[in-house]
């Protein structure tokens, strides 16, 4: 039986993903534990049809306490796209940066 510890709401997303991609998963209600933050999955849990690599899932998921929600990006009206002040750079240097890439890579455009 695999044991997955849940310390915050962050795990909810992961468990939802697993459930969504592996519909055969059911909670093993026979397992008894005093750990109310644990989620127990049956030994028959399979990842064969899942995008989620369950091999990496056979352990503990830990998260910092109190971080229940993911970082929220500002909505479109308020999004900070950076500084309106123009940033200047020497033209020759910029062109050197852009054009030097093929030369430095040592590849021709036809090389696989």
């Amino acid at each position: 039986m695999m044991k997955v510890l849940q310390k915050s709401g962050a795990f909810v997303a992961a468990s939802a993903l697993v459930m969504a991609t592996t519909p055969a998963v059911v909670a093993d209600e026979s397992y008894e534990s005093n750990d109310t933050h644990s989620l127990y999955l049956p030994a028959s849990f399979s990842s064969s049809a899942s995008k989620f690599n369950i091999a990496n899932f056979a352990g503990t998921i830990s998260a910092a306490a109190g971080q229940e929600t993911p970082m929220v990006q500002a909505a479109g009206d308020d999004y900070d796209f950076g500084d309106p002040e123009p940033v200047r750079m020497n033209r020759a240097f910029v062109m050197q940066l852009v054009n030097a890439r093929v030369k430095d890579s040592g590849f021709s455009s036809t090389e696989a």
Partner: protein
Amino acid sequence: MDPTSLEVEDLRQGDICMIDVFPLWNDAEASRIITGTKISGLQLSVWENISIAAKDATKVLVAVCSYDCDLENPRSRWGVALAPLVPLASRHRDYADLLASGAPIDDDDAIAFKFLNSYPYAENPLFVNSKGESTAGMVDFSAILHMGKAKEAIDSLRSRVVFRLDDEQRTNFQMKLAMFMARF
């Protein structure tokens, strides 16, 4: 080839592609997946404020940031650099300036760009916001992540291109990204 994408022979820098999800690597909130004593994975959140493909509302839009020579030569490259296309609301206070910020300001011996950490894409019926409205977008260079592995990612992304810059726009994209990365 996805029927909702452009038919392109190769992937180019600045191409807008539709993918399932773009991760948000906020390290303070990324749960560690621990196997034994080893951290074997991370649980990442996803970008919520990202443009959506009009032709497939289950897909989000990203811009290819890797340079063309890396896309042509994936050998020894780990992945393809991608950045999210963030919807640009017409109500944004800097809307006009942001849309114009893709073109350099000529200044004798210098090249200058406003809003250096992002590149604009004009409003396009192919790009929609979370409300399903057609939207302009800004590619946020500060959020670049890699999708790997390079060859497999290139093959996959090539079939998911929904919009391509013209040559002048692509040159501007290259210069702006080069300046964003090379400041000191």
